[in-house]
């Protein structure tokens, strides 16, 4: 099929603008990123600068790929990362608009590549269990109810891609942060530090310049791992509980 692509270019000779490209011979079995590979091969052959975009595992788990496609983070399919999106969902002659994830806390590096290291700093603020190597007791010493463990897993499935931030009108990182807070608060191993953790992570989130949550829930709708906004509610409870308990960090 033939497609028209409007792609955000920024850096080098581009000040920040949409550039239009025509692409012929797109095969329906291609993934979206393979389609961009084909475009880049053509640009390189024409001695033009290829479009910079991030990707790595191409199977929806590393969280490296991003892109806002026709206004939606990771494109039109539910529960799908950009790398798992295939061209069979597009029709002959369509125009596709491709932009980077946009948020103050995710500055653009080049074209479609943004800096998401703010997420690492939020984890560094407290997204862990303080256990040194070798300090662990036997793995079966504490039984954990299957459903509880499963809920922790649901939260831990976050891939840290940042789609929640890109989808949110406030560019809030509440879904990302709350997924980690929930993952650890739901497990006995993480419960010990829960009060300190939630306050430290929320403080870091604010410091990075992410916006506030106004319950739009676009984050949940666009999350490729379908992380639930229940986690945000849980984080709010955790936070209030910690503050009322008078334990400050």
């Amino acid at each position, binding site marked *: 099929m033939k497609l028209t692509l409007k792609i955000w270019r920024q850096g080098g000779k581009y000040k920040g603008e949409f550039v239009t490209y025509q692409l012929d011979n797109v095969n329906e079995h291609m993934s979206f990123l393979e389609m961009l590979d084909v475009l880049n091969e053509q640009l390189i052959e024409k001695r033009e600068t290829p479009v910079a975009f991030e990707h790595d595992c191409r199977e929806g*788990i590393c969280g490296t790929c991003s892109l806002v496609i026709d206004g939606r983070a990771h494109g039109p399919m539910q529960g799908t990362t950009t790398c798992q999106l295939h061209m069979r969902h597009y029709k002959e002659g369509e125009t596709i608009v491709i932009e980077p994830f946009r948020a103050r806390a995710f500055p653009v590096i080049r074209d479609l*590549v943004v800096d998401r290291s703010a997420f690492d700093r939020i984890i560094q603020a407290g997204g862990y*269990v303080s256990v040194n190597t*070798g300090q*662990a007791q036997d*793995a079966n010493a504490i039984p954990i109810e299957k459903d509880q463990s499963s809920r922790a*897993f649901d939260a831990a499935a976050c891939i840290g891609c940042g789609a929640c931030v890109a989808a949110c009108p406030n560019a809030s990182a509440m879904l990302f942060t709350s997924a980690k807070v929930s993952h*650890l608060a739901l*497990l006995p191993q*993480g419960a010990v530090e829960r009060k300190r953790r939630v306050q430290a992570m929320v403080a870091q989130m604010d410091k990075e310049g992410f916006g506030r949550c106004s319950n739009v829930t676009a984050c949940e709708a666009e999350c490729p791992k379908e992380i639930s906004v229940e986690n945000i509610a849980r984080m709010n409870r955790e936070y209030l509980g910690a503050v009322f308990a008078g334990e400050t960090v």
Partner: protein
Amino acid sequence: MSVQLDSKTPTGEVSEKWESYKGHVPLVSPNNKRRIDVIIVGSGLAGASAAASLGELGYNVKVFTFHDSPRRAHSIAAQGGINAAKNYQNDGDSVYRLFYDTIKGGDYRAREGNVHRLAEVSTAIIDQCVAQGVPFAREYGGLLDNRSFGGTQVSRTFYARGQTGQQLLIGAYQALSRQVALGNVKLYNRHEMLDVVLIDGKCRGIIARNLLTGELERHGAHAVVLGTGGYGNVFYLSTNAMMSNTTAAWRAHRRGAYFANPCYTQIHPTCIPVSGEYQSKLTLMSESLRNDGRCWVPKSTADVKKHPSQIPEADRDYYLERRYPAFGNLVPRDIASRAAKTECDAGKGVGATGLAVYLDFADAIKRLGQKAVSEKYGNLFEMYEKITGDNPYEVPMRIYPAVHYTMGGLWVDYELMTTIPGLYATGEANFSEHGANRLGASALMQGLADGYFVLPYTIGSYLSNEIRTGTVQTNTPEFDKAEKDVLDRIHQLMGVQGKQTVESFHRRLGKIMWNKCGMARNARGLTEAISEIRELRHEFWRDVFVPGRRDEYNPELEKAWRVADFLELGELMCEDALHRNESCGGHFREEYQTGDGEALRDDENYMYVAAWEWRGEDAKPELHKEVLDYEEIQVTQRSYK
């Protein structure tokens, strides 16, 4: 002159070697650890776990990753699970059995001492991960669940749905993040190591390129650890992530680290088949699927284009169950892969290309119900449907083998040190533990064993002699020269300004490797491959085109450097495969097989590790041997029948 390599394996009973080693290894006192710098390259399971553990011990650690975040490393994509000899199922497992299975699965080409140590520490890994908050699968009683995996008859695999690698990596990443927050580890993301620096024969640091600015940086340290993963992407198409590469290991090799068993490649039996030329990578479907899925092809070549539902039971050949009744669909990966190739070569392959076999869940769904099947494999089924557009609950999956893991890597001794003093290699980047074939769910185990429980002990043996060295200065002639070498190579890459893209060279290299150094190899094909790769490499340096500038964010330049290194490695892999006149594990030479097509080892002549020394770009590498002694295990022909 080739010298015998000494693995420095402790003497004594195999089950006592590690205990005895730990009791005698020199220690570094806490106040001295603060004065010692360690560089870790790579932030996957092997790198992140080592960085966190060494940071906790008090060393000054610097971690380098080319990713934007350490959490992106390719360990994250491992699906199936992690082995450990916990024997929670009371099904006859033990440390000895895990040790035995790993040696046998590796077709008797791994070092006994290392493998036993791996089996010993495996149990502590599970404890550590649970303490970090890794949400492993549990039973209704709240205790950990296990499943069985290819090549074993016990259930010793711990798993977290189909995302075990992700959960383990996040555990290690969190431990690493804690050390970053405490100031014990400094993180350099978007930095790629392009060379190691040797001073007086010891590794004293690295040259790294800041991928955002293109700036070259010098970093000194008392020891450098490479946890940089495998080199499966030499085949262009593999299940590895797009950026996985051999550069760090290869640069170390060029500086004197021997590269061991490069030809041992694992071809994973269950991957989604190739669909076209534009294909950029292959997607693995976890081996755990073979617990419940049954592999089959039509008995008659006339049926291959029929819809599977129109092929009655009597006309299907469940070839693994037929050929290997004892293990059935759970034979090790190398055997399952070759069996699929045999069927397809005989014209029984299905799908548009004829290069696929069915993996059918109809029986499992009938037996367990769709809900139970979806609980076990739901995310894998979804992944399959997203890529192919087919629903595996209704139509059998189509799968074909693909390059997945490389058992070969930098040669290391018992302490995980390469042949360069002060330079270590961990995880998939080293050659050890898996012999000629890795068992499923053992890669995660090895990466974490090395990082959490082995290296933190063994590195002390070397660093205890470094306490008087003082800070390593980087304004030395050795650093000057290393940086200049890197800069020259970048100039050379940018300077060709030829006509062909980096990608096109990589694709061509991949085809040569897959056709002539893939699932089945022979002397003629390998000899041809060596000269073809050499020609391709010369053509690359004559005609490659790298756009952009060196002093900016330039992914094409990064790729060009990596492909240039793959072109050199590919040749070495073929040399190694050609020299090894036997079949073992993932290395199958067509000339050496039994009457019924099984691998035929030659223990008399090849029971050794082949460690290659770099001699220059157009020179023949020099072979060094580490002879493998089996003191504990009786070496037999591997049989899964």
